[in-house]
């Protein structure tokens, strides 16, 4: 078992998770044993009944009828136990998956964003959804199968030895052949499956790229060229899919053939034994033997499948535990006091931060923001403007230095209390699937209808929301569904308008809104920013000109800091950026 179930650590964790259901698992095992025993008893009983049928006028009905009664009892008991066992197994499987998923989600909520940012979401989703299923299915089903398989083999062997040693020896020697045949084929086909998977992956990537961007393909008239490349991969896939499918499908007939050899040998040896034994071995026993020959070989045929399933389950379990045991963010200090009476005083004192050790990003950065001040962050794309937001919101914590809010080290404030002080509109306009109303009320689920409508009006979102089929009750699908990028951004703004926290963070908040709508929002923004400390990231210089402090960023560093006029007078990088806006007049 050690080799199959990977390292002992994983096994222990697996047992921990099943521990809650140990009585159910035990019950399932007892039922499995009972089912196996009774299933094996039936052929013996049938054999005995057949022994009472010798020939015309030689049938002992007085003996047959009680045997048939016993068979009926066995069958009824088996069916009942099988059913209970299935129900119990289902219950354990589904409940274990449910528990593990909840555990995984609870962990996701407290994982640091650095984890979520650095791991592909698709991969995490597949751990929570597919791996959890495969783990529970594979482990419990695999284990039950292994258990019943082993019991079947043991009981059958035991019975056969009591009946006839020689026939049993024949069966014991020949049956493992099917195992070797299956193994032989499996190792040969493994390479073909690997090539099929690889080619299939290559094709999926190609399809993803070309079909996902068909419009570009068509704009450049590349349909024929793309089809040609596609066919190249497609033909290779046809070839290796054919080989993989064919060679793997030989396994069944091959093991079946071994089984029929066993069957033939049992029939032969059994018949000779009946003739030679002079009554010690009966025709009924031979019948039971033949039924067993089939039953005994089945677990052998399945065993390689079960082993793969178990190995797969353990791999999935390892992937799951990796997620569940990932280092969570540092918990809030037990004595952390929530912020009270936030005025909007923020101070960064000698802050250092980098995402990766080898690339320094923010070094010894200091900044003092008084309540109600407006801080603008500008610079070319990818210069690290959002990093500051990550630090302010404590999505990431600085490597060195202190960020103070209202004079308190932000690390000593509970995250939720700190975040409640900020209203955030990000470039990435994430909306949750649900109604518009639910989305707007995200910051305050108890908001009244009037408050929601007022916020939407302030963000100039009321107009388009009203025109939607179900107004505020319109359900928006995943990723915002049918809303345009601009409309989504308006909703994100309205979402913040509803709670109006003392401090604001606006990251490219209006990048996808056309300038006319933006103009309309601008007045609302100005009203919203009145008396509120705000941090604004934007490309458009016109929207940030009125800032009290402008931070100019370049390659992750803050290169200049000051007001619009000061920075223009300095004639540095900011002046260059600003003036370039007018260079276009030359054309």
């Amino acid at each position, binding site marked *: 078992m050690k080799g199959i179930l990977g390292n002992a650590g994983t096994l222990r964790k697996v047992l921990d998770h099943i521990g809650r259901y140990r009585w159910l698992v035990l019950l399932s095992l007892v039922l499995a044993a009972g089912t196996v025993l009774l299933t094996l008893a039936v052929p013996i009983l049938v054999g005995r*009944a*057949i022994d009472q049928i010798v*020939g*015309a006028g030689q*049938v002992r*009905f007085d003996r047959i009828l009680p045997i*048939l009664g016993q*068979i*009926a009892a066995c*069958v009824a008991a*088996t*069916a009942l136990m099988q059913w209970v066992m299935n*129900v119990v197994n*289902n219950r354990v499987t*589904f409940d274990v998956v449910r528990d593990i998923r*909840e555990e995984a989600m609870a962990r*996701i*909520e407290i994982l640091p964003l650095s984890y979520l940012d650095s791991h592909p*979401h698709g991969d*995490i989703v597949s751990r929570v959804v597919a791996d959890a299923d495969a783990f529970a299915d594979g482990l419990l089903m695999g284990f039950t199968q292994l258990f019943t398989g082993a019991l079947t083999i043991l009981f059958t062997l035991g019975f056969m030895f009591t009946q006839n040693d020689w026939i049993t020896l024949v069966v014991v020697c020949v049956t493992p052949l099917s195992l070797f045949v299956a193994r032989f084929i499996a190792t040969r086909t493994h390479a073909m499956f690997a090539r099929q998977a690889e080619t299939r992956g290559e*094709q999926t*990537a190609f399809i*993803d*790229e070309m079909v996902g961007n*068909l419009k570009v393909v068509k*704009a450049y008239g590349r*349909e024929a060229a793309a089809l040609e490349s596609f*066919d190249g991969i*497609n033909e290779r896939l*046809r070839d290796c899919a*054919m080989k993989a499918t*064919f060679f793997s499908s030989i396994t069944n*007939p091959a093991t*079946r*053939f071994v089984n*029929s050899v066993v*069957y033939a040998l049992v*029939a*032969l040896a059994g*018949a000779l034994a009946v003739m030679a034994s002079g009554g010690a071995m009966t025709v009924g026993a031979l019948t039971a033997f033949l039924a067993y020959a*089939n039953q005994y070989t089945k677990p052998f045929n399945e065993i390689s499948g079960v082993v793969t399933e178990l190995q797969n389950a353990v791999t999935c379990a390892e992937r799951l535990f990796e997620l569940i045991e990932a280092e969570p963010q540092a918990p809030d200090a037990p004595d952390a006091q929530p912020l009270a009476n936030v005025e909007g005083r923020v101070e960064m004192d000698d802050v250092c931060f980098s995402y990766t050790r080898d690339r320094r990003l923010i070094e010894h950065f200091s900044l003092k923001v008084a309540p109600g001040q407006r801080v603008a962050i500008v610079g*070319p794309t*990818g210069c690290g403007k959002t990093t500051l937001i990550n630090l302010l919101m404590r*999505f990431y914590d600085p490597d060195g230095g202190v960020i103070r809010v209202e004079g308190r080290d932000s690390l000593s404030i509970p995250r939720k209390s700190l975040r409640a002080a*900020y209203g955030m509109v*990000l470039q990435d306009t*994430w909306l949750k*699937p649900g109604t518009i109303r639910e989305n707007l009320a995200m910051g305050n689920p108890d908001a009244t209808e009037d408050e929601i409508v007022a916020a939407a009006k302030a963000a100039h979102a009321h107009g388009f929301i009203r025109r939607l089929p179900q107004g505020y009750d319109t359900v928006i699908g995943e990723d915002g569904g049918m809303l345009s*990028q*601009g409309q989504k951004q308006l909703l994100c703004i309205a979402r913040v308008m509803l709670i109006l926290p003392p401090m604001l963070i606006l990251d490219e908040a209006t990048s996808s809104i*056309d*300038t006319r709508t933006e*103009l309309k929002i601008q007045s609302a923004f100005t009203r919203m920013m009145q008396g509120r400390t705000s941090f604004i990231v934007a490309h458009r210089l016109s929207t940030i000109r009125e800032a009290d402090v402008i931070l100019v960023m370049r390659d992750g560093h803050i290169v200049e800091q000051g007001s619009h006029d000061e920075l223009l007078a300095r004639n540095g990088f900011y002046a260059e*950026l600003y003036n*370039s*806006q007018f*260079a*276009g007049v*030359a*054309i």
Partner: protein
Amino acid sequence: MLKYLSRYKRECVCAPLFKMLEAVFDLLVPLVVASIIDAGIGAGSAGHVWRMGGVLILLGVVGLASAITAQYFAARAATGFAADVRHDLFRHLASLSFSDMDRLGASTMITRMTSDVNQAQTGVNMTLRLFLRSPVVVLGAMIMAFAIDVRCALIFVTAIALLFAVVIAIMAINIPMMKGVQRQLEEVLGATRDNLSGARVIRAFRREDAEYDAFVARNRALAARQRRAGGVSALMNPLTYAVVNAAVILLVRRGAIRVELGILTRGQVVALYNYMSQILVELIKLANLTVTMNKGWASWKRVEDVLNLEPAMDESGRATEAAPGIAAAVTFDHATLTYPGGAGPALTDVSFAAMPGQTVGIIGGTGSGKSSVAGLIPRFYDVTGGRVLVKGRDVREYAPEALRSMIGMVLQRAVLFKGTIRDNLRWGKPDATEDELLAAAKAAQALDVLEAKGGLDAMLEQGGGNLSGGQRQRLTIARALVRRPEILILDDSASALDMATDARLRQAIAELDYRPTVFIISQRTASIMGADVILVLDEGRLVGKGTHAELLETCDIYREIYESQFRKEDAR
């Protein structure tokens, strides 16, 4: 489906045929065993037992040979079928019009080509392999039973009918339940994905606990549904087992009576018993097969829906040359466009003419129809009213490839493909020389991208993933410039560039020696205010047309946009 399978006629006939052969050999086994018991043991003939033992092994060998042959043909047919379908699907998708693609959506198209085709392939493979085998065994066993003894065979008939009833009833109840489970699972998946993609917003709004509770509720609902569905399918094994063994009991009893009367032999009773066991095995296989077939068929239906989609655009135009003696490069003649399924027209009665070498700026709010104007020129969409002319000829008269080869189109979303930068740029012109590529890159301000990545032969990841947004945009512009297009369309394609680079780019385009007609679509007034003609769009209507200076005087909307970006005192 038949159309695709008919290419594999030989395979489709041979696979089930050989499978049937195997089944027939399987059916002979109990008869041979009966003969061993009656003619061998009964008559005390050891020679007969040896001979029959040999026959059993021979049956095994022949069965193996026919099974392998069957598997070979089935694999060939199924994988060949899948490859052909994928080829046709790809070709078909590439022939669809833009509005068809909008309606289908990329993720649907990709799923159809990958998992649906695979599912259908498995369906075909399993069907060819098992579809004849299982029914032949079940029916064959019954026929054999009839051949042995009619009265005992009646037990078979009843048992088989009962088994079918049980299997079908359980599946009929279970399949809809499993669909419900699948839907609930998708909800759990969606909730997981949302919690990841929305992590920042959820935490900023302190909704972690609420989102966790929502997830738990969905997850529990899933477990409850699974348990209910599992409860039904848990009946399958016990019930079929009970039915078959009840039949065995009846069989032995009836058999005993018939032997007593001298109608049957003991060996024949054993044979009947064996046939009954075979039926159970095959019936369970058949039930599993039905599930696979169902899945495969549903997938095929989805694939077929896409294959049957008629391209919405008539692409039969064959003209390749401009109309003689016409001056304008692009003319919109009362063009109106309503997207299929769109609530109202995206463009209404738009008319203008762009002369060769002119620069046309297009500006307007979100949803004002800027991109629609751009999409009509290379005929990505067809007008629903009026006409669009390129070089004096209606775009519908051109062969689509000929029309599009005149145009360099840079879309809003900068898309590049896996491969070298050289491969990507050559999309514009497959036989472009090194000098041509570099000249285009220079004009597109992309030389520093080449430098940063290591030259034309630098590899790009899928979608240009190893480039920044601005780098991607500049390479897509270079790709359009490589073909030295007569008409260049930049659809908001410099949005990720800083203003200095944007300005240099416009300067370089203005200096191109082949003087293309340029359309610049932008939300920034700065990007278009130097254009020869500026078109101002508002809710699909052309509300202003003229130079920057003219429009400042005559067009309120233009002035409003301009002033929102430049305050009056700066507009020197």
